[in-house]
């Protein structure tokens, strides 16, 4: 009965057909009766306060039902509670919509206009005019590093001797900078809010976690969470941008209450750059030293990241230096600078992607200083146990990944001498960089129902933001139940279903997969008991024999003691071959090989697509992505896809995604670890390292655009062939 396709190449996306035919309905694609449209009005100043808002023209415009701002917004109970402790300064936290007259960043929503059509709302929004009192503001990280403050408790750490790297015979110290980057998934953020009763709410919302959104809304509006129904059946990408309840969601919910009709609020593309977070602009400095034969003596890693004035966003980019390589002396220091810009948030590979760019670049620089191959340098400092906790790893096959990747990229073609290889007038270079990310397993519950016709229904409240969670879950269930995948229906994205955490931190296959695994095993066991045998049961026959319409279990699943006994990580290594034009500075990525050590691969096709997507994100990070702010106005100047560049097909070569595919014996029954983050982490460093190998020019400030390479390569050409 086994579906052989599952076991060889893996299952194709179970929702693939729905997605390519347009049949998949995303959160914006529902039309509850009487639905109207909300459009936000953004602040045109960067800091200060609102003196007045003239809404008359907007209110008179055709089709307008309401214009809501802090002047007339119904009190939001969750906001009040936080601030009732009189006399104390307002605690920091997520941004509060329509809370007071303060302007904290440019584009901050100051009003929402509701009208009977989207176009009318959009037009009326342009008629809302505010009078402000402006204050001086700061939007430049570079100019404000002096005001940086320690980032939480983990702001500073040390293992061994501080600054020991300085005593090493071979050492270097360099600064690395990443600009802020935006998630900007293809699907725009959108919510439809509908109050079914005074204290009962239904939303169709783009979210990475229906349960967390339910909690978030319950906290803000102080209604029982059971009264909130959150639907998020399909999500067209999120990358971390849909892990919290954002102001536009609050605005739609308030608007729906005010106009007493369902309100849809969808952000425009420009809003996507300022309203749902971003990866923070971060400055880093690494000092690293080694013995002549390449043993690390010490690493010191400092970082200053941007945050907003109202919230401390802490993503710890420096942690990579503590845990990636075996190094006796590591000290880190992480600070935040509060700027008058909206808060950053988690973005694919949060912290680690930023930190790994610096660390993997620094290691590459060290390899040239030592004249040791970059892979060999990493193997010389290979951590056999977790350097930070001293615990054994639950599994680690990174050394095999190095070898596999090196073979596939053709690492032996790499010249250890930079700028020494040219082909058809282009400089050729190879680089590599690694990534790691904690392998997590959270708790989740799955209901498994075997129906009389032989259909297996699986239900859990997870969202699938695109990686193919449903496909992976069906693969797991098909294997255990020994039935064809086509007989399995996976239901998710609905807060009334059993608990699952938000899709983030590369933890869902490990977490929800375990719940699916456990539920299926329990259900199968129930059948076996009914039938009185332990062979693969004939489900339909047993149900019929016992006159049952269905048999179901609801199983909660979480990790045991092993979660504490072992250090659990996923690893990746990226190999990149680039061609750089010696005079124009154009970089073309010619070949990419990514190897993931993320345990057993549950769903090979969707796993491959995860790796490919992450690698492309990494190429974007390395070569083009950059949020640009004109500090004279505190405002983004490239809030569109013509000016904010992400890779297009022409930029992306064939990407080989390879897997070690050895199960982790401790993390969960499938032996599967996460891979969403590691697909991206380390990639930007690999590209930068390849560019250095090609040109002899080390770019430490992303993105690596042609202007940064122009004019230097004449000498590279002379040194080279």
């Amino acid at each position: 009965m086994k579906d052989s396709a599952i076991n060889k190449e893996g299952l194709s996306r179970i929702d693939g057909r729905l997605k390519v035919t347009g049949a998949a309905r995303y959160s914006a694609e529902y039309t509850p009766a009487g639905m109207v449209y909300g459009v936000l009005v953004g602040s045109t100043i960067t800091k200060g306060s609102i003196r007045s808002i003239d809404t008359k023209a907007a209110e008179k415009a055709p089709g307008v039902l309401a214009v809501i701002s802090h002047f007339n917004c119904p009190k939001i109970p969750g906001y009040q509670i936080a601030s009732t402790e009189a006399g104390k300064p307002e605690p920091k936290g997520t941004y509060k919509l329509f809370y007071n007259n303060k302007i904290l960043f440019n584009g901050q929503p100051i009003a929402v206009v509701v009208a009977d059509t989207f176009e009318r709302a959009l037009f009326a929004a342009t008629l809302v005019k505010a009078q402000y009192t402006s204050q001086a503001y700061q939007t430049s990280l570079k100019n404000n590093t002096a005001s940086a403050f320690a980032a939480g408790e983990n702001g500073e750490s040390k293992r061994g001797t501080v600054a020991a790297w300085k005593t090493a015979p071979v050492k270097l110290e360099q600064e690395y900078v990443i600009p802020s980057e935006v998630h900007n998934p293809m699907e725009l953020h959108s919510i439809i809010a509908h109050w079914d009763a005074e204290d009962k709410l239904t939303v169709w919302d783009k979210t990475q976690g229906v349960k967390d959104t339910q909690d978030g809304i319950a906290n803000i509006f102080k209604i029982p969470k059971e009264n909130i129904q959150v639907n998020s059946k399909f999500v067209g990408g999120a990358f971390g941008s849909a892990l919290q309840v954002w102001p536009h969601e609050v605005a739609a919910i308030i608007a729906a209450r005010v106009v007493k009709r369902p309100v849809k609020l969808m952000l425009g593309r420009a809003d996507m750059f300022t309203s749902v977070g971003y990866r923070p602009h971060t400055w880093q400095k690494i000092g690293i030293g080694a013995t002549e034969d390449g043993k690390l003596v010490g690493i010191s890693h400092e970082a200053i990241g941007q945050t907003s004035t109202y919230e401390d966003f802490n993503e710890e980019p420096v942690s990579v230096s503590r845990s990636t390589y075996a190094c006796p002396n590591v000290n880190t220091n992480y600070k935040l600078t509060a700027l008058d810009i909206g808060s950053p948030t988690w973005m694919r590979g949060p912290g680690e992607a930023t930190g790994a760019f610096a660390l993997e670049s620094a290691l590459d620089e060290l390899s040239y200083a030592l004249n040791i191959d970059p892979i060999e340098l990493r193997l010389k400092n290979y951590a056999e146990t977790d350097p930070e906790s001293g615990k054994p790893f639950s599994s680690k096959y990174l050394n095999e990944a190095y070898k596999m990747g090196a073979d596939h990229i053709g690492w032996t073609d790499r010249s250890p001498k930079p700028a020494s290889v040219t082909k058809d007038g282009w400089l050729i270079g190879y680089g590599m960089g690694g990534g790691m990310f904690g392998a997590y397993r959270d708790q989740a519950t799955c209901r498994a129902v075997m129906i009389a016709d032989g259909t297996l229904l699986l239900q859990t409240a997870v969202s699938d933001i695109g990686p193919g969670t449903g496909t992976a879950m069906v693969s797991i269930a098909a294997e255990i139940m020994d039935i064809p995948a086509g007989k399995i229906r996976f239901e998710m994205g609905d807060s009334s279903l059993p608990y699952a955490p938000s899709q983030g931190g590369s933890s869902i296959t490990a977490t929800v997969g375990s719940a699916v695994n456990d539920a299926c095993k329990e259900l199968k066991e129930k059948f076996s008991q009914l039938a009185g045998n332990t062979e693969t049961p004939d489900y339909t026959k047993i149900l019929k024999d016992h006159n049952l319409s269905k048999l179901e279990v609801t199983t909660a699943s979480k990790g045991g003691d092993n979660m504490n006994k072992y250090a659990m990580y996923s690893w990746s290594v990226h190999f990149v071959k680039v061609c750089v034009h010696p005079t124009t500075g154009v970089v073309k990525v010619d070949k990419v090989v990514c190897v993931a050590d993320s345990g057993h691969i549950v769903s090979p096709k969707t796993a491959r697509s995860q790796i490919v997507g992450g690698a492309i994100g990494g190429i974007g990070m390395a070569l083009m992505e950059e949020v640009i702010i004109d500090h004279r106005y505190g405002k983004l100047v490239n809030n569109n896809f013509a000016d904010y560049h992400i890779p297009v097909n022409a930029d992306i070569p064939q990407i080989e995604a390879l897997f070690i595919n050895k199960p982790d014996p401790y993390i969960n029954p499938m032996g599967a670890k996460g891979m969403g983050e590691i697909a991206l982490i380390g990639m930007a460093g690999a590209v930068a390292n390849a560019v250095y190998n090609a040109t002899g020019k080390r770019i430490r400030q992303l993105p690596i655009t042609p202007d940064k390479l122009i004019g230097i390569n004449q000498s590279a050409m002379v040194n080279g062939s």
Partner: protein
Amino acid sequence: MKQFQYTRPSTQQMALDAISKPGAKIIAGGTNLVDLMKRGVTAPDKLVDINHLPLKNITPTHTGLHIGSLALNSVVSENELVLQKFPLLSMALKAGASPQLRNMATVGGNMMQRTRCTYFYDTTMPCNKREPGTGCGAMEGFNRMHAIFGTSNQCIAVNPSDMCVGLAALDAVVIIAGRKGERRIPFTEFHRLPEDHPEIDNHLAKDELIIGVEIPDNNFAKNSYYLKVRDRQSYAFALVSVAAALDIDNGVIKKARLAMGGVAHKPWRLFDAEKWLIGKPISEENFKQAAQMAMAGAKGYEYNSFKLNLAPATINEALKHAAGLV
């Protein structure tokens, strides 16, 4: 909401009458105009859709090739006569935008497309081109994409077109219809420098219609090249682009044509460098010297000074390609 009228004239005369009315604006492929309307940069009272006029033809004349103003960018770039006589134009077109856009964009619309300067697009920012007298946001702002030649203290925007760089190099002539009849102007004199009126991009009068361009026959087909340097491999505007065309006899240059994009308010012809190359053997040394000559008068701003190096490098590279040295 801003209401506007829409008309679809079926004859050139009707079109000319329609566009002479105040607030009227021609729409062709709409790929630029509609964006500008959405962003609030322009708000016409009346759209005159000229897509039904018989201006799509690409026909040989006894001195060259006529290309109608409504010929699609994609069609022109694949046209056999274009590929055979003026492959440079095809290369320039294919370097622009994306296949989807080129399938809508017309020759006339491409010539009339407005700058991509972000201060021009963002109506909350100062911009002398959008709103004369408000100042130039780019001059001391984010000006990485901006001009290094022919700027004024009013405006440093660039003309974003690739096609126009090719046409400028190929000595094309613009054919314009007005209510008083037709006139022809050299392509290099169609667009203008910003001077004190950056709001005016070119010399087309409001009540005139571009009906086509004519490219005179030449001997450049064998040795021409369009090189566009950009931040990604497709779907990005030029940092710098160069159209190079050479007529080479026995390794010696008989004629040269050079034009640059991404560096000025108009396609920037390098007349001095062209002249200097005449009679010179093809060699990287000579190309480099021509490139240096072309840079006379260039001026960089805070974020675009790299173009002072990139431009000559690109000229040299394009010439090498055109001459078959790469």
